[in-house]
């Protein structure tokens, strides 16, 4: 069936190509290939692959002619890289679509990605490099009847690996930009939005009465005035027992989530304060499935770090219940001032604090009495509801970090970072409570680049993470030499010198060489990767350690 559809799509491309003579449309796309060899390394615990090398690749093709567009993606996992789920297996064309727009109506059939509001009730998206893809397969309509009014509706099944969910997902969303719709010339701009998503899955469970239709809805508001910007969204999901269906495990309570942000900025200065509260708000495309079937997105309320040791212990939203807040400050000290120097200095501050929900009230249905409960609660239940605010809930994650960037002269640029992080390893990695506790780490980073001559730059990164818990302390050093616009060469070493287990005080050395030209990029590497935890879209996965050569090709046409 899938194959037939694909051929029909391809044939229609060709037909369109041959019929249209002057403006015959455009075909573009991109290709990505990642190959890795796996050799055994007993010391770091890396396993050899039976296949010796594993290979992931995909090619996207999009055809566009005026308001018509169609495309497909060929994916190949022969076999999938070790840090991908092995359900990605073999070749296929799991993504194909056709779409056109006429008089403000956009019709898409086949696969599509869609998001309602911030994603609290629905997001289908892809991050190919990390193996995340929950594309929809079905129909989507978008319509704008008037300027400032945007309507959309969709129906389909959600993808996980090479299969589609049993659940049918239906959704609708309306967004109104009041200033555009009512032609208001006020300085304050207001945008409101309302979304609704519902999943149908037949109840064939002999033991439990399960809701066949599960709805989730969200309301959002965005107010902008000059440098001020407020954005908020509140979402509710109706009763939806998920996961392993057992008498003890089933939770029929409603879920909800709130996110809110306020920012102010002007030239040289910006500040953002955000909070969110999440309570039993995981939404899956199938009832009795794992986290890989999630179809909503509760954004993690912490900074997404890119320096290796800052991202060693990453946070991820606990959708069953958490309360978090975050603040970001961006400041540029002016050129010519005492601290700004000749070129100015940039300062970035970030603080986030994520806790469990706490306390709550217990309803005794027999005598309608309300009593107070103490301690931390994971989420809403049939019997109790946690408090709105959480001050003393169990700490899940905390991060305080400060980054300073300075161009010292025409040749030297430097970045310095200091950070303190607390990471609840038990909760964030799903371990038994009390196994590891909280990993407290202090991190310092220096990143200096020096321009040797036109086009030639050397960059050094030194990173240090001091910790007692977890795997103990780490050091990292990186040296990179780049020749613009074509070449880069990098060597790095991560050294786990503070591991309490002396036999695990290991070096992880990597060498990378890359060549870039226009739309093509080729990179080869050799080295050892540490086992670690990587989080994407609210799903964290443990990636095994590995040792070997890698080849990455990325191209776009």
């Amino acid at each position: 069936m899938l194959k037939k559809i694909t051929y029909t799509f391809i044939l229609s491309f060709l037909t369109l190509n041959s019929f249209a003579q002057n403006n015959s449309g455009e075909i573009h796309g991109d290709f990505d290939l990642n190959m890795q060899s796996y050799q055994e390394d007993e010391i770091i615990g890396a396993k050899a692959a039976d296949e010796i090398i594993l290979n992931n690749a995909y090619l996207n093709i999009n055809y566009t002619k005026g308001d018509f567009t169609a495309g497909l993606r060929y994916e190949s996992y022969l076999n999938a890289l070790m840090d991908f789920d092995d359900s990605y297996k073999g070749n296929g064309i799991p993504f194909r679509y056709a779409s056109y727009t006429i008089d403000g109506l956009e019709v898409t059939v086949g696969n599509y990605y869609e998001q309602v509001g911030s994603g609290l009730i629905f997001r289908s998206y892809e991050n190919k490099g990390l193996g995340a893809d929950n594309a929809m397969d079905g129909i989507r309509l978008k319509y704008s009847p008037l300027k400032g009014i945007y309507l959309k509706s969709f129906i389909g099944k959600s993808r996980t690996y090479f299969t589609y969910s049993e659940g049918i997902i239906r959704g609708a969303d309306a967004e109104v930009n009041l200033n555009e719709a009512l032609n208001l010339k006020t300085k304050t701009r207001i945008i409101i939005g309302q979304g609704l998503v519902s999943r149908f899955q037949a109840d064939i469970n002999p033991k439990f009465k399960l809701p066949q239709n599960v709805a989730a809805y969200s309301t959002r508001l965005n107010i902008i005035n000059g440098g001020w910007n407020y954005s908020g969204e509140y979402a509710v999901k109706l009763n939806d027992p998920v996961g392993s269906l057992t008498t003890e495990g089933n939770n029929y309570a409603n879920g909800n989530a709130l996110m809110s942000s306020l920012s102010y900025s002007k030239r040289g200065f910006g500040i953002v304060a955000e909070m969110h509260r999440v309570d039993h708000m995981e939404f899956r495309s199938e009832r009795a499935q794992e986290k890989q079937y999630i179809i909503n997105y509760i954004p993690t309320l912490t900074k997404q770090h890119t320096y290796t040791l800052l991202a060693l212990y990453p946070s991820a939203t606990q959708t069953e219940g958490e309360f978090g807040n975050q603040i970001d400050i961006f400041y540029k000290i002016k050129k010519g001032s005492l601290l700004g120097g000749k070129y100015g200095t940039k300062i970035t501050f970030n603080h986030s604090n994520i806790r469990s929900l706490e306390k709550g009230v217990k309803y005794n249905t027999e005598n309608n009495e309300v009593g107070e409960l103490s301690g931390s609660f994971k989420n809403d239940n049939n019997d109790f509801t946690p408090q709105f605010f959480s001050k003393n809930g169990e700490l899940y994650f905390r991060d305080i970090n400060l980054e300073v960037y300075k161009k010292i002269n025409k040749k030297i640029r430097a970045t310095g970072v200091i950070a303190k992080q607390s990471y609840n390893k038990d909760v964030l990695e799903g371990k038994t409570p009390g196994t590891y506790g909280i990993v407290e780490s202090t991190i310092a980073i220096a990143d200096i680049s020096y321009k040797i001559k036109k086009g030639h730059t050397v960059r050094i990164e030194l990173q240090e993470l001091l910790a007692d818990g977890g795997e103990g302390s780490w050091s990292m050093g990186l040296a990179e030499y780049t020749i613009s616009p074509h070449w880069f060469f990098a060597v790095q070493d991560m050294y786990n010198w503070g591991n309490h287990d002396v036999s695990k005080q290991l070096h992880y050395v990597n060498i990378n060489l890359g060549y870039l030209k226009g739309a093509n990029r080729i990179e080869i590497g050799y080295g050892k990767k540490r086992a670690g935890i990587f989080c994407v879209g609210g799903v964290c996965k443990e990636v095994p350690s590995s040792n070997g050569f890698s080849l990455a090709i990325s191209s776009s046409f």
Partner: protein
Amino acid sequence: MKKLFLSLLVTILISTLSIAQNRTLPSVDVKTLDGGSINITALENNGQPIVISFWATWCKPCKKELNTIAEVYEDWQDETGVKLVAISIDNSRSMAKVAPYVNASDWDYEVYIDPNGDLKRAMGISTVPHTFLLNSKKEIVWQHKGYVDGDEDELLEQIKKLAH
């Protein structure tokens, strides 16, 4: 069946080569920083070159590229009339940080957000930064993946080739 598929694919690619001489922007909506939306085909610079740079608040090389160009942007504009459009691919996790970051960084670019990657996919981008150069007819004439120190010099050379 596989052979049929491959031959079809090759046919498509060959026909592509013959028609894809003038690559234009796809018709995709992106978000403006004041909550509105704009179709990317509506970008204008009065027949002067346009640079489109895809970036994110969490992407170090992207910020390095845009901060480096910001230091010389006025000179570039005087010299070539170029306009730079920075398109952030930050999703709802970091979208609220885009405007404060841009303002604090003192950028004079036009900035838009592509929160669920619709434009990114339509333009065949797998990683950021990714930079495109558009000529007077808004056709893509040059592109570059990644950023290392000094890449801005090559970009300027390419812009100068287009400037009258």
